[in-house]
Structure formats: C-alpha cells, structure tokens
C-alpha cells in the first residue's frame, strides 16, 4: 500500500493536504470475442481539492474508460478488474449500487464531451436541471428552479429564465456546455470529471468554457479531472498532468515537469507533435499506430514506436522511477536503483 500511495503522487510536498480522491492500481477490462481488452491497466493518481489533473493521451488509450470507472459507469462486457478508488478514504468499488448512485452527482460529477448529445432533446434544460437536483434532495420544483437559476448565473449565462425554459437545440453549443457545467457543480461535488469538455465546441467558445471551469474549480474547491488530447488546454488549465498510453499512465508530474522536463519518449513525442515549426514546415508525427489493445506487445507498449527503445524495452514492462518530487515516469531509460519506487 505504501508503494501504491507513493506511486499515486503522494509526496512530502503535498502529504499535508490529503487528496480528495486516490486512485490506486485501477484496472478495467472488456471481455470481447477477441479476448480480454485491458483498457485501463493499473492506473494510479490522486486528485487534490482545487487542483486540476489533466489526463492526456491518444484516442483509445483508456482516458474515458478511466473516468467512467471512477463513477462505476462501465457497462458489460466491461468490468473493473481491481484497484481502489478512494474518496475521502472510502473505497467506491466496495459500495452497493444504491450507495454509489447517491454519490454520483453529489460527490462526483461529470461533464461530457458533446453538450448536444448529453441533454435529452425532448425536455427543456431547466427540467433536466431540476430533475438532477431533485434526484438527490427532497425539494420542491420551485426550490429546485431557484437553485438552478442561481447556478446558471454562476456560469456567466444571461437571460436565465429563457435559458431555463429552452430546449437543448435552442441553445448554442457554448451555452449548453455552460448549463452542463452548472448542473455538474450544482451539488458541490468534491470531484468533477470533465471528459473532453471543449472538443465539440469551436475555439473561441473553448477558451471561455475553460476559463469558467478553472474559476469554478478554484471557487468551489472541487478537484477537477480533465480528460483531453489537447495539450494547449492542458497548458492553460492543468496543475498536474498524467500521460496515458495503451491503458497505462506512463508519466505523471506537474505541468512544468511535463512541459519542461518530459522524461518519457512518448511525452516528448507528443510535445513535439504539437509544435508545427519544423524545417520543411510540416508537422512532426509519431510514427506507427497505437497498439491493438487486445494484443498489447510484450514489454513497454510504446517500444515499437519509440525512437529510443532499448532491447529490454521490448521484453519487460518498465518499472516506475521518481524523477523529482511528484514527477515519475515509467521508462527503462530512467532506470536507476535509488529512483525506483520502493518495492516495485
């Protein structure tokens, strides 16, 4: 457990402020005809109040499955294989379905990628807002509406009464996402998960939504788990960054650690791939394809695409090495005895 906690990012610097949520060795698999798909493999991280942890990775690397696992919203044939999801010391994976349901929306909330599809198109957003409130509190329709309007004003929406009585398609994408955020934060959750909250929005609206998220995150003191593949968003918003590849976190650290002292070749490749300035003016792409998750190659999953792969990279999965403070990486290149996370 000590080893695991350490790996989740608990170090001297932040030992005093206990994390709101700790995820330890979380594994989620899908049993399909092609075999067991290990979508999330032994993922560990911590979320701290008022802080933003960004999870970055390519499509299909397990970001969204990780997020849904925290809410225990994995549908068969998927299942959470093992691990702990500790919210204030309570393991969510041991709760009954009823207990878990009461936590959803109150302690952990989620904002989805596309605010068009995450609203039921046949009800007004107001009705869906009050429904969410009344699912958890014994309040009247009127009280729920008052609370809803108050929350809507907090996400910088104007003309609240009209927004409240609008159907989702009558609002713009940005407005819908603001309403979504308002609903998610209405019950003052300790953890807010935002699964690519700006992907479906255009760039000008994006920055507004991100600013809103950041401000509310600081204001309410909830921990924000931001799932994205947009490193620009990460740089703007995140306090800490976790890089995921093939279901594993390969590197985690503060936003400065990741952007200035990236250790993992994959992280570096990601960072160079967003930098368009190359001598011939083209983009730097990472060669190859992400691995087939039903058939992950032995050793480091990134080794087939890694420009710096050693022989042992293709044979043995790398262990985790602390670079500095809460910055650690899972790469043989960083191997050294004293950096090794004890007991691993």
């Amino acid at each position, binding site marked *: 457990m000590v080893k695991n906690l350490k790996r989740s990012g608990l170090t001297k610097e932040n030992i005093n402020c206990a994390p709101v949520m700790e995820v330890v060795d979380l594994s989620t698999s899908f049993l399909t005809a092609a075999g067991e798909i290990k979508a999330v493999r032994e993922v560990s991280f911590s979320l701290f109040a008022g802080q933003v942890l960004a999870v970055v990775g390519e499509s299909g690397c397990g970001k969204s499955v990780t997020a849904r696992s925290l809410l225990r919203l994995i549908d068969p044939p998927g299942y959470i294989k093992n691990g702990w999801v500790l919210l204030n010391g309570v393991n969510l994976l041991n709760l009954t379905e009823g207990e878990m349901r009461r936590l959803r929306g109150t302690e952990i909330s989620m904002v989805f990628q*596309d605010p068009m599809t*995450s609203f039921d198109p046949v009800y007004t957003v107001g009705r869906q807002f009050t*429904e969410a409130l009344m699912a958890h509190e014994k309040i009247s329709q009127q009280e729920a509406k008052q609370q809803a309007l108050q929350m809507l004003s907090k996400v910088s929406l104007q003309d609240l009464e009209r927004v409240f009585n609008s159907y989702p398609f009558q609002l713009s994408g940005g407005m819908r996402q603001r309403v*979504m955020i308002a609903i998610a934060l209405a019950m003052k959750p300790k953890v807010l998960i935002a699964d690519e909250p700006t992907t479906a929005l255009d760039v000008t609206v994006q920055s507004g939504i991100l600013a809103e998220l950041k401000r509310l995150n600081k204001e309410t003191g909830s921990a924000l788990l931001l799932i994205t593949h947009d490193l620009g968003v990460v740089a703007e918003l995140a306090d800490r960054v976790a890089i995921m590849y093939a279901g594993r976190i390969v590197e985690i650290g503060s936003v400065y650690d990741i952007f200035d002292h990236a250790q993992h070749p994959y992280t570096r490749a990601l960072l160079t791939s967003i930098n368009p300035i190359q001598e011939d003016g083209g983009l730097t792409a990472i060669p190859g394809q992400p691995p087939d998750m039903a058939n992950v190659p032995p050793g480091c999953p990134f080794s087939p695409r890694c420009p710096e792969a050693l022989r042992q990279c293709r044979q043995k999965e790398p262990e985790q090495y602390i670079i500095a403070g809460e910055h650690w990486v899972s790469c043989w290149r960083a191997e050294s005895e004293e950096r090794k996370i004890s007991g691993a």
Partner: protein
Amino acid sequence: MSKYKTVTVISFIVLTVMAVMVIGAPLFTAKDPTGVELTKTLRQPGQGNLLGTDEMGRDIWTRLLYGGRVSLSVGVASVAVSTVLGVAYGAISGYAGGWVDRVLMRIIDALLCLPSMLIMLVIQSMTRPSLTNVVLVIGFTTWMQMSRLVRTEVLSLKEREFVLAALAAGTPVWKIILRHLVPHCSPTIIVMATVGVGHAILSETSLSFLGLGIPPHQPSLGNMLIGGQNQILAGAWWIPVFPGAMIISTVLAITFASDGLQHILMLRNAGIEEGVKKWLKISKEAA
C-alpha cells in the same frame, strides 16, 4: 404525401363521428338496445326502425350504437392493458440487456409461437364471459409485439449520451426509463397502440361471434353478427350487414389513421426530436 393526408383526415373524421355517436348513444336513439318486441320481429330498414329489427324485434340501429360502444371500449381498454404491459416489459428487457434480455425475449418468442386466438378461446371457455374478462384476455395476449418494438428502441436509446449523463448525475434507473427512454419511444408506442385498437376490436368480434366474448344478452358487434347469420338465409340481410360494415369501417379507419400518424410522427425520418421542433414551430405560429 397529399394522398396520405386526405386518407388520414377522412379516417380521423370517421373515427370521431363514430366515437361521438357511440359515446352519446342515448342522444341518437330513444330505444332500449335489449328491449325485445316480439310484435316487430325481422322488420326491414325504414318503417319506424331506421335499420330494421332482428329476430327478437330489437332495433338494429340502437344495438349498433350500444354494441359499437362495447366493442370500441373493449378495443381501447385492452390496448391500454397490452400497452402498459408491453412497454414495461420491453423497456426493462432492453435496458437490462445481457442475459436478462435474452431470457425475457425468449419468453416472448415462446408466447408468440402460440396462436393468440387459441389462448383467448381456452381462457374464455374456462371463465365466465364478461366485459372485463374480454378486455384482460385480449390485453394479456397481444402485448408481445409492443414489447419487442419498445425493447429494440430502448436498446439503441440507452447508448445515447444523455442516458449516461443522467446516470452520472445520479438519476435512479427507473426514472431514466420512465422519463427519458419511454417518452422517446412514444411515436412507436402511439402507432402500435392505434393499430392494436383495430386488432383488439377484431379479436373481440371474433370471440363474441364464437360465443366466448361479450355475454349474448349484451349487444356487441360480434354478437350481432352471430345473431344475424341464421336470419340471412331468410332474407334478413340487414341484421349482419350493418354490424359487419361498422366493423370493417372502424378497423379500416383505425388502420389508415395509424398509417397517417406514423407519417406525422416521422417515425421513419428523424423521430421525436424533429417532432418537438415541429411542434414548437407550430405553437409559435399559433401564438
């Protein structure tokens, strides 16, 4: 499209007229539907009796109105039973998925293997015939199609993101089914239910015709048919023809109406979301 519109409008007019006449039966006739007048048996249409009398001297027009009342209410009530049952069963099966779904659907397959008319006959012959019994028997033997359709819709609807969003907000599953999934199936449900009313009326008349439906002393379209079949050779054509025509026109009108509804609700195109938009537009123009 315009062909559909005319037929649909005519069907709805026919149905409305029938409903009004049947519900307000006492307003359209002063006679008693069960009143036997042995001095006036087998009278031709006209001559004081609009549509003639039967072998017991009962007024056909009066019996047609009251019989239509029974048949239509059996149709509507039994569809209500089968709709509630079918929607609940289908929604649960579709939402649960996995082996629960498989077991529930195989049960439906098994039930559909048995001819429903046969089950109705068996149950009816074991119980005392009454209006409630007919409603329940028809309701409980015709819910399977509805259930299958609702299940398929729910199967695809539950994968939509707003269901996940509702779950993530902590909405209880029953509420999601009742408030989000079933309303989205409403175009299907409405069309299926309308078609069902026609079928239920036919079932009721068949049962009554076989003497296992509505008790013989009560007028119903089926009862009138069986009563008429003995007299038709004696030349009293008016006894079976009018109830027969009423059955055909009702069922045809219902069928065309449900066809039209299907187009109006755009079942094949965009579904309920487009419907909401359209409805908002109409109500805005009206305002």
